[in-house]
């Protein structure tokens, strides 16, 4: 990164890169896009890779926080350090401009942050565009060329990517088994300073797919843009890199070329490119057909009610939208085109009972439930097929036996293990709220979730409640199916588990009735003395 200012890179490319780097900061992004690549059709917007701004911060602590936040896919709050942009949500519905005004600060604020002296020997990126969620698998072979131990490897993402990233998982293969680490991936220093190490990274940039044309009629198929860079954006020098992009079908309208580029059936290969300076990029656009319904749940609220009398009741409120190319023209039930949201499949735990599926009008009967020993599958179909831009909202509820999910440990705490995410397959949730309603009298509730969520405590009232039930509320933005893993809520319960308080309150009410009867019969209300 310092090479940019001091010009230590000797290759001619660096000049172009330098001016491009400056240009993209201060000029309109389209200018740079057209100049740098051989895209033959107008690119309405360019997705560029974001520098890891945290490397410019002088303090290592701040960097660690940001990098950790990056890795977990959470969007950091400060806008001063991150290059932030005005896209809302994971889908580039509005298309265009990405770069905004925070960037000049980057140029000024470049302190002497010590970057570990590491080069990337080989990087291979596989991007899977088969569904509506983009999944990228990055394999890095990193070598430490400095004299000191390098404890971290910094990954850089562009602004749009950083905003859309839902989940990053990193692991280092050691021997035959993979060990997963979640924070900045540690390069194993060992005794020699230049031991190459492999690093595998999987992350889901959440749908950086833009439907183009933005509006289609019912029977047309959907074409989307995917914007990326041919060179991996990295703060390190990369010796060799290749990018493979896999599309769902063979129909690719166009793709930008950055030689050597090759296309075989559904797979596009960009590379191998040799010896790229740090922060090099080259925007590419792939325009291909993707007829997957882009099912986005705009808001999902899951309420899990725990009752010690033996059941767990889950109620889920969905607001589902189809975020693909907007539908235009007439809708005809006879002419069902290739792109409409069909059946949604929800995977529920086994031994589920009393499943209902209703919306504001009433019960929706287009559903099927199948269960086996390991899971239950609920197939639901909305009342009407969803085309681009259409929405549906409904409620799904089911009951589960308590002994599958609630456990008691010897130290007296009780643990509830339940899955966090949305049970619908291949859907993205913009805003997910999970509320766990614990029985009355539970003390010290605490939740532990494998990824960062917002937590708070509330009180909710239900049947036979006097003081209210403590409720743990967990919120997450931008959840993908990979977030559908178990989380835990633990409570302390001092008195026995039988919550006979409810019965005691009812008994008390009846006794009050009898007592008032007795009191009435013993009082003399006659006017005349008898």
């Amino acid at each position, binding site marked *: 990164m310092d090479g940019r200012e001091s010009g230590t890179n000797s290759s001619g490319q660096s000049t172009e890169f330098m001016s491009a780097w400056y240009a993209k900061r201060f000029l309109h992004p389209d200018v740079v896009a057209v100049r740098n690549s051989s895209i033959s059709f107008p690119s309405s917007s360019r997705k560029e890779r974001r520098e890891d701004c945290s490397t410019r911060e002088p303090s290592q602590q701040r960097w660690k926080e940001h990098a950790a936040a990056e890795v977990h896919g959470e969007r950091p709050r400060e806008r001063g350090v991150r290059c932030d942009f005005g896209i809302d949500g994971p889908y580039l519905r509005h298309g265009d401009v990405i770069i905004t005004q925070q960037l000049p600060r980057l140029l000024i604020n470049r302190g002497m942050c010590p970057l570990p002296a590491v080069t990337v020997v080989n990087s291979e990126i596989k991007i899977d565009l088969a569904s509506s969620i983009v999944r990228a698998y990055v394999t890095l072979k990193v070598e430490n060329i400095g004299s000191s131990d390098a404890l971290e490897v910094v990954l850089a993402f562009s602004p749009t990517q950083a905003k859309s990233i839902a989940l990053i998982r990193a692991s280092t293969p050691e021997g035959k088994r993979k060990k997963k680490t979640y924070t900045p991936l540690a390069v194993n220093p060992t005794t020699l300073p230049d031991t190459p190490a492999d690093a595998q990274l999987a992350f889901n940039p959440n749908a950086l797919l833009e439907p183009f044309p933005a509006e289609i009629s019912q029977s047309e198929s959907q074409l989307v843009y995917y914007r990326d860079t041919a060179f991996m954006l990295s703060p390190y020098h990369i010796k060799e890199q290749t990018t493979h992009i896999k599309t769902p079908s063979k129909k690719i309208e166009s793709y930008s070329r950055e030689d050597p580029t090759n296309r075989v059936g559904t797979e596009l290969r960009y590379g191998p490119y040799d010896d790229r300076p740090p922060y090099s990029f080259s925007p590419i656009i792939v325009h291909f057909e993707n007829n997957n319904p882009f099912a986005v749940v705009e808001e999902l609220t899951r309420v899990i009610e725990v009752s010690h*009398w033996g059941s767990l009741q889950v109620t889920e409120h969905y607001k589902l939208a189809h975020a693909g190319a907007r539908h235009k023209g007439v809708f005809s039930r006879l002419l069902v085109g290739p792109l409409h949201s069909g059946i949604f499949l929800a995977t529920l735990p086994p031994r589920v009972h009393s499943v209902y599926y209703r919306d504001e009008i009433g019960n929706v009967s287009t559903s099927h439930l199948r269960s086996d020993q390991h899971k239950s599958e609920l197939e639901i179909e909305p009342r009407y097929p969803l085309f681009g831009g259409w929405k549906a909202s409904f409620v799904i509820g089911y*009951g589960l036996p308590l002994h599958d999910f*609630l456990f008691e440990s*010897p130290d007296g705490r009780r643990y509830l293990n339940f899955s966090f995410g949305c049970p619908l397959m291949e859907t993205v949730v913009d805003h997910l709220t999970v509320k766990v309603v614990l029985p009355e009298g539970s003390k010290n509730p605490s939740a532990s979730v494998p990824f960062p969520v917002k937590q708070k405590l509330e009180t909710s009232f239900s049947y036979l409640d006097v003081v209210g039930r403590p409720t743990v509320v967990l919120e997450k933005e931008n959840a993908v199916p990979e977030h559908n893993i178990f989380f835990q809520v633990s409570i302390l319960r001092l008195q026995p588990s039988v*919550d006979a308080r409810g*019965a005691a309150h009812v008994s008390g009410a009846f006794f009050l009735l009898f007592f008032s009867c007795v009191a009435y019969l013993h009082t003399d209300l006659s006017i005349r003395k008898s």
Partner: protein
Amino acid sequence: MANSAKPISSPVPQEWYPTLAFFMLAVGLVATASFFIYEATVSKKNRSVLKELSTGAVASVFLGFGSLFLLLSAGVYV
């Protein structure tokens, strides 16, 4: 945690809920009936407050638990 944690289930087997509800409510209603019969038949000066209140207490306990089990057997897990 998995090997030392034991699953928690209801203290009373769930299959018993409807039966328990029925019998508790039956006993509670019999006690209520006995309370009101006592009030109606025994003359005012022979009534003993203690007997009234104890019958009322027994009736209310059984009615309370009976209605709890009635709610549980109906699926309202309180």
